[in-house]
């Protein structure tokens, strides 16, 4: 698509392809997420990371080593991880005396931290603690946000955006109706808790076309509380949310829809030259030889006149 702009040229075709893939694209796929651990992690957080990894799976990467990272003091190693794995989201689990059962969720833009939110995992029940059937991997879930608080503070607004980004999977044009089998609800309660619940959707008969929905909890069941946050500056967020010109839908001219939903179009036609319209050919309308000759002579005289005039003008 584009010419490689690197000082050192890739030597192999495969290398070139890899680099091209890493370049900014007009249409980006699902954001990949990396999961890693801090200096120390509690069992709870470890399991949580594992479960979230399972939910996110085809677009996720679990890093197994411990990392000596204090992300709010120095985010550089995390940015390096994201660059290495070409992923835009990260989840870091850690556990310390000061901040027990800690989970940091964040996003990067252009390989630098866009926003991150630190959460305290208060209660946690994993996927395995629910004995129900699980859903198939990779289904697009229904996301449900409950509570008035989501729109009231900047932190929660950002967290909502992060949650949508994390769980919504790829953008699709169409979904299979029977394939809607996962529903995740996020509840921001007035006591400052954020409760994540995940359900399997059962579509039952209802007597009408639309089915009756029944839910069955499949886990994980997590209660978060907010800790530290790093919100993006409005400029950066605006920059990150920019849409490529190619994807913007331009306004179509001369098309309008009236109240009844009928589409009206306005067509512009060129000037009608009635004299030149080819009508039905009839023998009687045909020019005779004399008429043709006269027309020819007339044209000749006119052109000569023109030449003379031009000469005079010169």
């Amino acid at each position: 698509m584009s010419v490689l702009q690197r000082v050192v040229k890739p030597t192999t075709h495969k290398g070139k392809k890899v680099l091209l893939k890493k370049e900014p694209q007009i249409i980006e796929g699902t954001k990949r997420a990396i999961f890693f651990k801090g200096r120390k992690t509690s069992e709870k957080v470890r399991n949580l990371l594992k479960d979230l990894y399972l939910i996110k799976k085809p677009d996720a990467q679990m890093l197994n080593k411990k990392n000596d990272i204090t992300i709010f003091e120095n985010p550089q190693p995390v940015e390096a991880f994201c660059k290495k794995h070409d992923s835009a989201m990260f989840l870091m689990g850690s556990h310390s005396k000061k901040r027990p059962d800690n989970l940091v969720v964040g996003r990067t833009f252009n390989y630098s931290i866009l926003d991150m939110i630190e959460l305290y995992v208060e209660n946690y029940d994993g996927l395995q603690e629910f004995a129900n059937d699980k859903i198939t991997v990779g289904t697009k879930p229904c996301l449900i946000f409950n509570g008035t608080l989501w729109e009231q503070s900047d932190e929660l607004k950002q967290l909502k955006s992060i949650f949508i980004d994390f769980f919504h999977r790829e953008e699709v044009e169409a979904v299979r109706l029977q394939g809607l089998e996962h529903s995740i609800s996020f509840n921001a309660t007035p006591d400052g808790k954020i409760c994540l619940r995940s359900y399997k959707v059962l579509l039952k008969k209802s007597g009408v076309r639309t089915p009756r929905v029944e839910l069955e909890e499949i886990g994980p069941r997590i209660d978060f509380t907010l800790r530290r946050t790093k919100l993006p500056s409005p400029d950066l967020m605006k920059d990150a949310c920019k849409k490529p010109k190619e994807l913007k839908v331009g306004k179509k001219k001369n098309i309008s829809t009236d109240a009844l939903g009928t589409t009206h179009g306005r067509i512009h036609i060129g000037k009608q030259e009635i004299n030149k319209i080819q009508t039905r050919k009839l023998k009687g309308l045909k020019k005779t030889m004399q008429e043709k000759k006269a027309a020819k002579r007339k044209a000749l005289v006119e052109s000569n006149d023109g030449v003379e005039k031009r000469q005079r003008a010169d």
Partner: protein
Amino acid sequence: MDVVVSEILQKSESEALKYKSIEVKKHLELEYDLGTLLAVDNNDFESKFLRPDKREDYFLNLARDNTQLLINQLWELPTERVEEAVMVKLPPAKTLLPRMKPVPKPKSLTKWQQFAKDKGIQKKKKAKLSWDQQLQKWIPLYGFKRAQAEKEKNWVLEVPQNADPNEDQFAKKVTARSENVAKNELQRLRNIAKSKNVKVPRVGVTNPDNASSKELQTAVTVAKASTASLGKFQDKLPKEKEARGVADITPGASRKRKLPPVAGHIEKKENLEILDSILNKRPKMNIEQAVAKQIQSTKMDLSDNNHHERSKGGGSKSKNKMGKKPKGGKGQRSGGKNSAGRKRR
């Protein structure tokens, strides 16, 4: 007939009663983003259900209701059948999510591409194979077989007429080729620098054999300015021109004068700017100098006094022994005959 209809209606009604309803009542309508399968419920929680023992059921019911509402919306969208499955077409997503990488910028053209575009030069396709008369076979445009063919063809090289007969023509050819490669690489880097808006240091004249006249002119101008007197005493050839764009590395060279401003108001503005720059200037105070001056003046005063005293006493030899050079008064009035009275001019 009527009986049948009513029967059917009754039947369907009773059937509908058998199932639970799909209707959900809400205070505030939910906000939907069907493109991302998202529903936002802005209703308040009922606080009595938020107690730990009732909480889970409440959340489950809430989620059920909202999912039901979302699915009701989804089922109303136009559907189509694709291989036994009913697909529903989703509208484009409304939620703005940040991108992972910035929007790709259009790649800037290289210097050649720009030139070709301006001139309307189109790329000609070359055949991959061409017939070689000398070798009587098809040889490719590039690749190892091409190199082999070249080798085969050029087993002997003609020595040009006025060339040194001892010069190795083969070695010359090799160096010319490597130089060409280097030039191409340089141009590639220059194009990259141009597209990224990076300033690269000028490299000067790399090879005097194939330098352009412009490059040579630049080299001459720079060389001329590189004397101790910044080229002030360098002679000029009759029709010599100075290279342009080298003002930053030839400090003594004459620069193009700016034309005076065209419009009156611009001139006024410029003059006002100059005036401002002068009026806003604080007097520069060199503290060290000022202190030295102060010390000097006090010393002078002291020495003056001493002088008077000593002159009264008679001997003035000791003054010179202080080690300080006399500074010719430095504007101090010597206590001469005009020390008192009106200043005359």
